[in-house]
């Protein structure tokens, strides 16, 4: 085993740091993404011809972790590069790859996932959105929700019903929808933790012949992989790490007697976060190309998410009340936001019940970790 980053990963992290340090801290984060993209750092695991460096997923993980730690909106990076970009890379046509991947890798184009619909819960087969043939293309109509950073996005990977079948898994297809087309409405929906969700309404939206990803009516077979692409746990890990650091700094501001009482919990959190990080990196290390083993991904996602949740809950329950409301600072604001965001970490990208189902499908633990 190896409990530290490999030299190649460290070099990449330093490259990211140089770019992050070299920019204006007030700049629009999209400009920072573009600077990272110019240096081919946003998707180092993409082939060179599509704007990447042809490196491994584990090397991309080191970059993604650093980007997340820097405070950039990592969800948009994760969804764009992993969920949408890797889907195009894996299941798209050569034309789709050549058209969409370079701007994604260069940080010039963001993308969203439009899979969830209102009241469908975590069941991606409950789809009312339809795509009907229109000349050589399609017309898509429906309402999607729980999407984030969609106001930045130019395209979205959207599931739609293209036919019926004996089973509700059948007749689902995936499309790349141009969000600048007529008939697309994007409305924010409040979210406790801050940056909003978006409700995306599509009313007879035109999608060209080259918008279909994968086989017609066979989109269901692709969906688990699409979701797995964003299930590495690194987004949750970054939250756990940054919340832990904020808590540690705030703890230092307390009188020694209060500090002593609260410090014990920090040891446990530090321990859990480090273990979760090893799990996440191991899952990336063992990936076959872009595909992470779904059982290892489930372990990593749950471990990272729960470590972050534990820190947030403790901050809300024990640390923040002791710190008091004044003076306010960025760490306290971050911890207050953490309390609000924490529940999402076992809901988004597949709720914890699904992850536990996956883990239970492959016991004992030895199989997952060796």
């Amino acid at each position: 085993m190896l409990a530290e980053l490999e030299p190649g990963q460290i070099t990449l992290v330093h490259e990211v740091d140089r770019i992050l340090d070299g920019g204006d801290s007030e700049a629009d984060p999209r400009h920072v993404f573009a600077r990272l993209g110019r240096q081919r750092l946003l998707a180092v695991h993409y082939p060179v011809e599509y704007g990447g460096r042809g490196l491994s997923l584990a090397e991309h993980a080191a970059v993604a972790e650093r980007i997340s730690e820097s405070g950039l909106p990592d969800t948009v990076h994760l969804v764009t590069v992993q969920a949408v970009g890797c889907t195009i890379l894996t299941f798209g046509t050569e034309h789709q790859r050549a058209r969409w991947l370079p701007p994604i890798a260069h940080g010039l184009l963001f993308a969203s996932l439009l899979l969830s619909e209102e009241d469908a819960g975590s069941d991606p087969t409950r789809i009312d959105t339809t795509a009907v043939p229109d000349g050589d293309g399609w017309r898509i109509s429906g309402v999607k929700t729980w999407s984030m950073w969609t106001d930045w996005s130019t395209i979205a990977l959207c599931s739609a019903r293209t036919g019926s079948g004996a089973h509700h898994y059948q007749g689902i297809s995936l499309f790349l929808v141009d969000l600048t087309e007529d008939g697309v409405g994007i409305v924010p929906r409040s979210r406790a933790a801050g940056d909003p969700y978006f409700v995306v309404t599509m009313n007879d939206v035109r999608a060209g012949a080259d918008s279909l990803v994968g086989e017609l009516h066979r989109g269901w077979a692709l969906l688990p992989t699409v979701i797995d692409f964003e299930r590495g746990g690194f987004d949750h890990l970054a939250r756990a790490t940054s919340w832990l650091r904020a808590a540690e700094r705030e703890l230092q501001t307390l009188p020694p007697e209060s500090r002593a009482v609260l410090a014990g919990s920090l040891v446990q959190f530090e321990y859990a976060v480090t273990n979760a990080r090893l799990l996440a990196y191991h899952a990336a290390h063992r990936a076959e190309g872009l595909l992470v083993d779904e059982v290892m991904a489930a372990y990593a996602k749950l471990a990272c998410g729960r470590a972050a949740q534990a820190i947030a809950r403790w901050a809300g329950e024990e640390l923040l009340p002791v710190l008091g409301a004044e003076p306010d600072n960025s760490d306290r604001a971050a911890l207050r936001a953490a309390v609000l965001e924490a529940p999402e970490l076992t809901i988004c990208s597949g709720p914890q019940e699904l992850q536990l189902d996956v883990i239970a499908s492959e016991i004992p633990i030895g199989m997952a970790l060796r």
Partner: protein
Amino acid sequence: VNLDLDPAQRDLVAAVRRSAATAPAAATGWRVFDAIGLTDLLTSTNDGRPVVGLFEWCLILEELGADCRSLAVIRSVRMFMDVFVHGHTAAATPLAAETFLALAGSHRAPLPSPLLTWRRTGADELVLSPGTGLTEVATTLPGVTLEKREAEHITDRDLLACSAYAVGIGRRCLELAHERARKRVVARRRLLEYQGVSHRLAEVALELSAARIGVWRTAWREDAGEPAGHLAPATAAACVAAVLTSAHTAVQIFGAAGTSDPTIVGLYRAAYDLADVCGSARSLWLRASSRWGSQARGV
């Protein structure tokens, strides 16, 4: 960063498993290991480092825990190696290494226990003495007293080894509980098909995997020359908690049978024996916290 075992480590694990599968039920952990024929490796070094480092010991001990083999003798052997052979203390002497080789090579009958006895003094020193198992061949082995820092290092390494053994017991509990849930039919459905059961097992798997990673990474750092510090009690705390959760889950999944089945009852007792050896999770976390604070202050 990865959790892959190298080929030699995988071979070692496989060898211990094979040996455990064929050893008599009453054979101790030491007998199971010795039967592999790799005992000489324990004294071997490569670039001044033991070929069987703490990481490898943890792999061995997890397998022995998973087979519920007695820990006592092999625990003594491992500590003996640390103190007298591999130079983690000033007590190391070539003579002691020869003594150990003579000991390891001479026994044919089950090895008497203990090889080594140890106790803490009020000043946190550690007093080690040859046990009855050494009297035949180890008359030259001196008893030693380790000062606080050395004592802490030696007992930390022992704590990590015991933690690995705890992971093994927990793994066995999980395997048996999973097997039971897979076969047992209740109300025309297998137990495993009930989410209340499958999720409980998955939670145990998750907790055990974290415990194992804690053992591995701490042992790996120890072998790289980085003392475990607060991570030793932290790791033990996580392992004690995990093995107790596993043991309780096994009993629960077996139902009333779990309170009478000799294997399940044996594992349940073994889990609490480990908690007795290592300390409670709460006390271990307190120790970890105290050490962490001391390290932060540079004490």
